[in-house]
């Protein structure tokens, strides 16, 4: 089960989200706004943002290449349960029988509960406080990261119990 790509898929998602969080620094210009009056600092901030954006883009491309190779290798070894990189359905769902469907449903229930609580709370915080754009993007990415983490931990717990 450790070799099952569907099990490790949330980890890939989390890695992509972390890179997006770094990339967001480059796309949002909150640092420049803060130091607008001090031109020298502004230039340094822009250089930093540019570097982070470039580094994140490279990291993203490298990770997506590794991901596609890993996916291709998994599909070659498991012709009966191929995963499409363009599937609309989350590939991490493990529903090959009723037991696996049961634990997937439990994990999804936990994720749903997390989203139900977190998104309205986050929307309220954004409405009440003047939060910079970068922090809003990081907040959304944190929710996405949390959702993957909850799903992965729940599935891992069940499958670890089954392995004992």
């Amino acid at each position: 089960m450790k070799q099952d790509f569907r099990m490790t898929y949330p980890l890939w998602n989390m890695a992509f989200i972390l890179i997006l969080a770094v990339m967001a620094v480059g796309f949002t210009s909150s640092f420049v706004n803060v130091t607008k009056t001090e031109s020298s600092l502004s230039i340094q901030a822009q250089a930093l943002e540019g570097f982070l954006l470039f580094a994140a883009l490279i990291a993203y491309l490298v990770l997506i290449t590794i991901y596609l190779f890993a996916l291709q290798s998994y599909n070659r070894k498991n012709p009966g349960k191929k995963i499409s990189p363009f599937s609309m359905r989350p590939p991490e769902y493990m529903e090959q029988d009723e037991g696996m469907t049961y634990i997937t449903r439990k994990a999804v229930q936990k994720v749903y509960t997390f989203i139900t609580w977190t998104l309205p709370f986050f929307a309220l915080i954004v409405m009440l406080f003047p939060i910079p754009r970068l922090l809003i993007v990081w907040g959304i990415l944190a929710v996405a990261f949390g959702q993957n983490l909850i799903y992965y931990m729940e599935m891992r717990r069940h499958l670890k119990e089954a392995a004992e």
Partner: protein
Amino acid sequence: MLSLVYIMLYKPNILMERMKRMLKNRVKELRARYGYTQSELGKQVDVTRQTIAFIEKGEFSPSITLALKLAKALQVEVGDLFWLEEE
């Protein structure tokens, strides 16, 4: 962060948890009697090894169809394989 910890510890369905505790089975005992591994028994009834493990641990209550298939594979009546234990 706190909501994350809360969700991790959250039990989605209390009724299901109670029912799980009530349903007992002899799958592990009978499987051992016939010398089947979890994978072998799983293959016979067309489920994964993990599902057999979940049933043996009482983590998951199988459907009637699967319970009947398991009883057939282990050559017992379904009532001798699964039963309810009153709380």
